[in-house]
């Protein structure tokens, strides 16, 4: 281990005990407060599973049905609790199956520690059975990774893994442990990591930048806030609300910022981006000051960068220096955890109101309502629309449920139409767009927040990518509510084929199995809605059920998601139909 940790850590050395590497791993997890982890056993990680057996009263291992499910469940757990999610797998295919979830956690800044078994160190590099260079494979998609071949390194590396995963801009860490290191004995003593000399998780705040930002906001005529997940990761939801209320600035959110501000807050003006709301997209190109808070100007948010907010002065509150000027040039970059920077900003802000400007958002909302929303919620048309189902969930949840969505049209419906009162309630795969995310993530979310209602909203495509996790839900009895919005298509791709590929529906129509029978096979309570008249009662029954529940809703086959910023277009050229 060559990386230097803070000096003072080494000053006092408490008494050590001799344990095996495998037991040390479990002890480290317990030291880090891990109560639940997700994984799948196999040859190279058996010593650790043997210890999990011994420690089963202290730490709950959830056997998922596929390692990808383990990472997504750990992500769901991390996203709702703010704690580090933990996933575990064996070497070779076990480890490679984790990669999608790791990549998802990396791009969505989710704190994750993944532990993989590895073949014995004497076999490394020999193409041994189930040997894979998982450290090499995971390098581009991890915040940090490390291979342990010497048991004595386990406590320090594990401490560092948790520290790195959760500090600064969070992310996934992978620790690969050879089988001999799991068996070998070590002198165990654990010390939490307090710092790494080459790693500065939180940049120092420059008070001059705060003053500049405040001045720009105070003198703005048409300011607009766009906030992202940085607000949630920084636990700055209250500060954000205070900033918004004091400055009177209308605030829009990115898909991962959703739920940081209650839906019905008067200054919440909706979602930005490709399928965001009409007002915030159009007005991005009319505001005079654009205040980006804990967001990274993803291409799905900005559309064509050459025509994105060119008229505006851009203020960028951000913890990661690499995000400054990456996509959008910041006139006033404000580095730091938003929890710190917004607090300082608040002191410099003037009480203000921007009623006329705020009205512009309302006017645009009315246009969007007439052209899009009214139709999405129209109970007169033939088949049930996705938004109607979300609306029924709102009626039952009153905005207090955690909604976990998969990827595609239903995701856009869920994010556009779900009402949220509480933060950390929207769990979705934003950056990577991982189909198959929702079912395992909902399981993890429910286990992280057992007292909250957790509803998974999934399309028929993504559902079949991780459908085997029904087995995990059945086994753990986690009371996840699963809503399958079945349109018999890979709807988002079909929509693009319709709009941009002349309706050539290449490989997007799905011949589906009987989903109700499948859920029944896992002894999960089920229901199916094919007609609008059944919807209300069915959703109500599902939400009130005190057990896992599967509800399939047959929705309109060829519904399109609007508004839409076509790829390469400017956000202000957003289409309403």
């Amino acid at each position, binding site marked *: 281990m060559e990386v*230097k940790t803070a*000096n003072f850590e080494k000053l006092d050395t408490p008494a050590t005990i001799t344990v095996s590497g495998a037991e040390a791993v479990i002890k480290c997890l317990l030291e880090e407060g891990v109560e639940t982890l997700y994984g799948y056993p196999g040859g190279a990680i058996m010593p650790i599973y043997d210890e999990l057996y011994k420690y089963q009263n202290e730490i709950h291992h959830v056997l998922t049905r596929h390692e990808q499910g383990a990472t997504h469940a750990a992500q769901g757990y991390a996203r709702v609790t703010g704690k580090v999610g933990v996933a575990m797998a064996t070497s070779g295919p076990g480890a490679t199956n984790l990669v999608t979830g790791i990549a998802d956690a990396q791009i969505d800044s989710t704190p994750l520690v993944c532990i993989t078994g590895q073949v014995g160190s004497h076999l490394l590099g020999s193409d041994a059975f189930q040997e894979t260079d998982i450290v090499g494979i995971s*390098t*581009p998609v991890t915040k940090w990774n490390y291979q342990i071949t010497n048991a004595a390194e386990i406590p320090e590396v594990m401490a560092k893994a948790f520290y790195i995963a959760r500090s600064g801009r969070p992310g996934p860490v992978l620790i690969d442990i050879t089988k001999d290191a799991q068996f070998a004995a070590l002198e165990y003593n654990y010390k939490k990591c307090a710092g*790494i*000399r080459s790693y500065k998780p939180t940049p120092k705040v420059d008070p001059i930048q705060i003053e500049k930002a405040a001045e720009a906001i105070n003198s703005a005529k048409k300011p607009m806030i766009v906030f992202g997940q940085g607000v949630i990761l920084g636990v700055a939801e209250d500060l954000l609300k205070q900033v918004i209320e004091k400055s009177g600035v209308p605030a829009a959110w990115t898909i991962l910022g959703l739920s940081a501000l209650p839906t019905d807050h008067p200054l919440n003006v909706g979602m930005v981006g490709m399928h965001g709301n009409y007002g915030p997209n159009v007005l991005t190109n009319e505001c005079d000051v654009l205040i980006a808070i804990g967001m990274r100007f993803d291409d799905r948010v900005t559309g064509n960068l050459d025509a994105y907010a060119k008229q505006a002065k851009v203020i960028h509150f951000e913890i990661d220096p*690499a995000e*400054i000027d990456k996509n959008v040039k910041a006139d006033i970059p404000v580095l730091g955890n938003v929890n710190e920077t917004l607090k300082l900003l608040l002191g410099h802000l003037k009480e203000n109101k921007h009623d006329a400007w705020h009205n512009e958002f309302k006017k645009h909302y009315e246009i969007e309502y007439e052209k899009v929303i009214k139709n999405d919620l129209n109970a007169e048309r033939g088949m049930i629309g996705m938004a109607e189902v979300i609306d029924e969930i709102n009626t039952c949840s009153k905005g207090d449920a955690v909604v976990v969505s998969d990827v595609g049209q239903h995701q856009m419906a869920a994010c556009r139409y779900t009402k949220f009162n509480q933060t950390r309630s929207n769990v979705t795969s934003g950056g990577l767009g991982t189909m198959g995310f929702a079912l395992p993530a909902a399981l993890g979310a429910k286990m992280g927040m057992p007292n909250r209602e957790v509803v998974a909203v999934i399309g028929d495509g993504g559902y079949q990518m991780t459908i085997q996790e029904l087995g995990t839900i059945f086994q753990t009895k986690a009371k996840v509510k699963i809503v399958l919005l079945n349109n018999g298509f890979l709807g988002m791709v079909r929509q693009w084929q319709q709009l941009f590929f002349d309706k050539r529906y290449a490989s997007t129509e799905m011949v589906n199995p009987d989903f109700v029978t499948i859920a029944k096979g896992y002894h999960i309570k089920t229901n199916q809605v094919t007609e609008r008249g059944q919807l209300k009662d069915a959703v109500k029954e599902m939400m009130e059920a005190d057990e896992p529940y599967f509800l399939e809703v047959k929705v309109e086959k060829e519904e399109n998601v609007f508004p839409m910023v076509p790829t390469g277009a400017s956000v202000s050229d957003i289409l309403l139909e």
Partner: protein
Amino acid sequence: MEKKDYTISIYTENNVGLLSRIAAIFLKRHINIESVTVSKSEVEGVMRFIIVVQETEEKIGKVVKQIEKQIEVIKAFYHTDQEMIYQETALYKVRSSDFVDDFNIQDFIKETNARIVTVTPNFFVIEKTGKRSETESLYEKLKPYGLMQFVRSGTIAVTKEEMRISNLLEQFNTTN
């Protein structure tokens, strides 16, 4: 924006795997690495990477931030040729017979500032340290005589300005 030669200096902890982590950042953006060298630095236990690439300054700036974001990277910088003192070393293996017949060896060594490393009845090995243009011009000179082998090191470079890495590390020890 115009592409130029940039020298990226990266001070890092000495850790297995860091080279591939850094290489991946270039790979992702399709930036071809012209040369890379890794050695110990002026600070005990700290390694220094010198990577030369041809790119626009905008892209280099972003890449350097991504590099600095890696956990074991202490600090990364980028500089233009004007801001650096840099050298490369090249070795040239030439057949003795060709070389002796056609050359006045004494004059050759004087002119080019090259050095003869080894002489055998069969071949000479000549070493030249200097800028790329100098090693390149010697290459052109020797090519007609049948170069048996040629190899050139990556660029090594020091900056004209001070780097203050020791201060940076000292700060960590006292403030953390």
